[in-house]
């Protein structure tokens, strides 16, 4: 399984030129394949998520064309935005599209931010959320049964949402309590990719004939991916809201502070027990 780099076409802006040069350099260093964005957008079905161990996307400017085009088809594992990196680390900006002299030094100054990510890449794979089967605690109340996963790195909120942390990416979704109180979920209104989310903001919403539930995000971050299968199969959330019914994946931005409002399996079990008893 190889790694892939998808970078923006970047012809009209200096940062785009830098993005392409960084991609070329990285692909030599790590012998990973470069995917041409224009070819990809013309023939998407040539590229499959399963073919690649990791897909790194490099955008030049905030338009983020590469992210927008690649998102669901390839499943991004890491995203970079050259303009942001240059600003964040106060690096020298490229002068113009024509001038080449400063390009190499700028690329060199950017490389460490990419390599650092590479080691994290390895650690991620063994703890991937798809890797292991879930173990559940079952809370029984009357004829209802609420599954609560007992998973390391999985946390809950008192808005009945969960997040599964995997390095700096969190997968989020709703708990059994939500899908049972909504009963048959008919619509999944997708969140917007690339949107910056503060903890407790909405990340899309799910709808049944009974109600609309705004998915309240357990963490702050940027939405990098959502479960596109749910558009046609929203009932998967009823079937299992933790595994095939997951909602979105977010690039974490403020987890240390978010952590304060997250609770673990035992705490959520007690919280739900009290909440369900009150309904009687």
């Amino acid at each position: 399984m190889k790694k892939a780099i998808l970078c923006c076409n970047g012809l009209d802006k200096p940062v785009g030129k830098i993005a392409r040069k960084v991609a070329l350099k990285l692909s030599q260093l790590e012998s990973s394949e470069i995917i041409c964005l224009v070819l990809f957008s013309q023939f998407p079905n040539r590229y499959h998520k399963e073919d690649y161990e990791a897909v790194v996307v490099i955008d030049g400017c905030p338009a983020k064309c590469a992210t927008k085009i690649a998102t669901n088809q390839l499943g991004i594992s890491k995203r970079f935005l050259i303009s942001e990196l240059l600003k964040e680390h106060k690096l020298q900006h490229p002068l113009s599209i024509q001038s080449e002299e400063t390009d190499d030094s700028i690329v060199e100054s950017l490389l460490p931010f990419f390599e650092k990510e590479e080691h994290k890449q390895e650690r991620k794979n063994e703890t991937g959320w798809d890797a292991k089967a879930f173990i559940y605690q079952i809370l029984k109340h009357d004829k209802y049964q609420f599954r609560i996963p007992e998973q390391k790195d999985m946390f809950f909120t008192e808005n009945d949402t969960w997040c599964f942390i995997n390095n700096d990416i969190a997968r989020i979704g709703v708990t059994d309590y939500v899908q049972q109180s909504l009963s048959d979920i008919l619509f999944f209104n997708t969140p917007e990719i690339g949107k910056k989310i503060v903890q407790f903001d909405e990340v899309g919403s799910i709808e049944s004939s009974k109600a609309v539930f705004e998915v309240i995000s357990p963490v702050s971050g940027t939405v990098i991916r959502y479960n596109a299968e749910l558009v046609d199969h929203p009932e998967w959330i009823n079937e299992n809201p933790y595994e095939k019914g997951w909602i979105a994946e977010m690039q974490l931005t403020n987890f240390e502070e978010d952590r304060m409002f997250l609770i673990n399996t035992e705490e959520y079990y007690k919280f739900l027990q009290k909440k369900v008893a009150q309904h009687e």
Partner: protein
Amino acid sequence: MSNEKIYILPCSGIGKVYGLLSREVAYKVVLDLEPQYTDTICLASLLLEEIKEQVVGKSVICVDGCPKCCAEKSSLEAGMVVEKKYLTSHFVRKYRGEDPGSGSELTETGKKVVDDIAKAIQIEVQRILQERGEL
């Protein structure tokens, strides 16, 4: 040419409107639209040996009310050939915001949903009959 009937198998959903929808769809097809070519059968009876012998290998169209898909799973277990499978909640989506009814009775919207699914099944039945050269 075997002119055996095609089974229309609803799920016995009792708790919510989606089971009632699937049941009414089966009756609409079997009693009104295609009485000559279709029949229905009690889902739970598929588990009884004496019934299994009658239905093994026969064609069935399943109409399920929720993701558990009991109609589909049980007919597969009874050795039937599932020609097509429908999920009533998917057809309710066309009437977003409207209430199709309860486990006991359908609203006007609910009846429209039944008609939509029944017509879709009728087309499917005719396709199967053509394939068998019976139509």
